[in-house]
């Protein structure tokens, strides 16, 4: 028979106090909850305008918030899992605003909402098609040859490939929480880290093909549930205890709801591109081996000769640091730097501690390489 816990030594008075405090919190929280409206929970509010569009892809130029300090414009490239709005979650937790205030000229590409009609789009279409055209457009607008790229997660893989295939178009390359060695989770092998890597490797390539055949795309809600599995108790506690902790404080509650709004926005990942992402990269690890191809051309990381800043989160459970750091040994650039920040995968962008570090770290590095 399993061991039984002995009764705890919590004083009855303490228990009563805690219960009363909780009841008070719930009462205040319920009032706030009923008062708030969906339109009050806004994210990605930094002003920008759409400057280019192709199919479902749109390119936006942010309005400057300060005098320009870095002449080369920077294009933020997020991936196809989730949306770039995480980088502009709210006014006091926004990489976008921080960079704009530091005089960076900023663009962002939004991949739109892929549907089953987009199931045949490949990573080649996104990297060599849409991204290349965005870069070309920005260069033309500014009458320059080179643009700086800031890739986030899967978007970092896109910018890495672009920089390797078209180095003449890239001034500097900033990567954040970007996987390069998709088997790098085995380096530290930390508990709770790299589950996506382990899970993908447990599947057969045919399983992935059938998944895409059945659904057309990699459904957004599917990836959402995989992410939830990576923090099992956090997921279980989120909508009861965690929310109870903040729901009586309007500021904290709105922060909670904004994060939820971003998490709920889970576009589908186009099917053929998902096959490449899961099979060529997660399973076969082709990128770090210089074996990944785009439109028949090999992505050779040694062709990345421009300055590179590789930012990663020390406690990133989705992209373990070693998977990002692998880039250092592979690039041809003599100007390669790493920036390790506290926090997790999303925390590095929206956490309080990293706000002062991420934006300023990137802006300083860019300014030094004008």
């Amino acid at each position, binding site marked *: 028979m399993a061991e039984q*816990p*002995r009764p705890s030594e919590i004083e009855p008075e303490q228990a009563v106090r805690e219960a009363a405090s909780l009841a008070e919190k719930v009462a205040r929280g319920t009032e706030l909850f009923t008062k708030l409206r969906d339109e009050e929970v806004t994210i990605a509010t930094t002003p920008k305008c759409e400057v280019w569009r192709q199919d479902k892809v749109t390119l936006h130029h942010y309005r400057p918030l300060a005098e320009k300090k870095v002449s080369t414009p920077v294009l933020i490239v997020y991936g196809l899992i989730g949306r770039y709005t995480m980088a502009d979650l709210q006014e006091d937790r926004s990489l976008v605003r921080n960079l704009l205030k530091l005089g960076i000229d900023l663009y962002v590409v939004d991949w739109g909402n892929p549907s089953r009609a987009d199931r045949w789009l490949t990573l080649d279409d996104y990297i060599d098609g849409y991204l290349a055209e965005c870069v070309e457009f920005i260069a033309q607008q500014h009458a320059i040859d080179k643009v700086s790229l800031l890739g986030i997660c899967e978007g970092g893989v896109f910018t890495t490939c672009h920089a390797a295939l078209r180095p003449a178009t890239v001034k500097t390359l900033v990567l954040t929480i970007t996987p390069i060695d998709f088997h790098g989770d085995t380096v530290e092998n930390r508990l709770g880290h790299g589950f996506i890597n382990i899970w993908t490797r447990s599947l057969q390539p045919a399983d992935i093909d059938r998944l895409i*055949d*059945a659904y057309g795309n990699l459904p957004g809600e599917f990836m959402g549930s995989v992410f939830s599995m990576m*923090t*099992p*108790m*956090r997921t279980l506690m989120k909508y009861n205890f965690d929310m109870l902790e903040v729901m009586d404080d309007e500021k904290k509650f709105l922060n909670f709801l904004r994060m939820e709004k971003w998490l709920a926005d889970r576009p589908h990942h186009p099917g053929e591109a998902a096959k490449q992402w899961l099979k060529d990269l997660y399973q076969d690890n082709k990128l770090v081996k210089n074996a990944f191809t785009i439109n028949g051309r090999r992505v050779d990381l040694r062709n990345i000769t421009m300055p590179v800043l590789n930012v990663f989160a020390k406690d990133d459970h989705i992209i373990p640091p070693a998977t990002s750091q692998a880039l250092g040994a592979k690039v041809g650039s003599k100007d390669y730097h790493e920036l390790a920040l506290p926090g997790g995968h999303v925390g590095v962008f929206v956490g309080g501690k990293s706000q002062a570090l991420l934006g300023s770290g990137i802006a300083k590095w860019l300014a030094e390489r004008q």
Partner: protein
Amino acid sequence: MQALAQMWGRSGGGFTTAQQNFFAEMAKRMADAAGQPPASAPAGFFQPQELTAANQTFAALWKSALEMSQSFARTMQQGKKTDPLVSDLMSKLFDPRTWFTSLGGMDETLQRMAEGPRLADLWDTERKLLAVFNAWTTLRQRSIEHNTVMLEAWMRAAAAFARTLNEKAERKEPLGSWREVLALWVETANTTLLETQRSEKYLDSQREILKASIDLRLAQQALAGFYSEVFGYPTRAEVDDVHRTVTELRREVRALARANRESTTRKTRAPRKKATAPVGLAPGA
């Protein structure tokens, strides 16, 4: 030959008579149900009398064709002795059943396309439905197997939690509030669940449940595709095919547009050659 023709004629006649009786009976029953005399069914309603009439016309014609066939058979038996093979061949040529077989291919096909499965195809539908049912039961089974793995993990977490509480009590380090108790439970359970996620047992059951859900989805799609074909709706495969074509066309257009831009850029950037006077002409000529 003659006997065969007669037997065939009798059976054909019997069939058409039976069909006539069936439709007449159906017409009467439908009229009774509608509370109206057989000749006054509501407008747009199925008119069994018309079908009966068509059947009667066909039956009459069939009878004539039979008589003709029998007459040919009789004629060919007369006169000098004929080659049995030639006789047989000639009989077939004038057999109305042969006419229907040779010319009715298109009719049969159209009829099958319009009406759906023939008697011989009926089990195809059953097989597809059975595939869906089997896939559903397999998914339920895999789900139970996976839940078993998870339940074992939760039980291990609970045991570890109890052990830690007792150890703390023995060391005279009791937890002072419910928050501390909750924090300990969260940490203990999280560790156990994360360890479970890396286990072969968990990954295997995850993979099996994923495969089972995909199999169910594909079985449902196959059934939906089957009925889409029958009722003339676009199937998933057909729509995917169209999307593939559109995607490929867009790719081509993008490539062409880029090639055009690059060509224009090259022409714009190419330095213009200085003009020179033609050889042989004096300056000012």
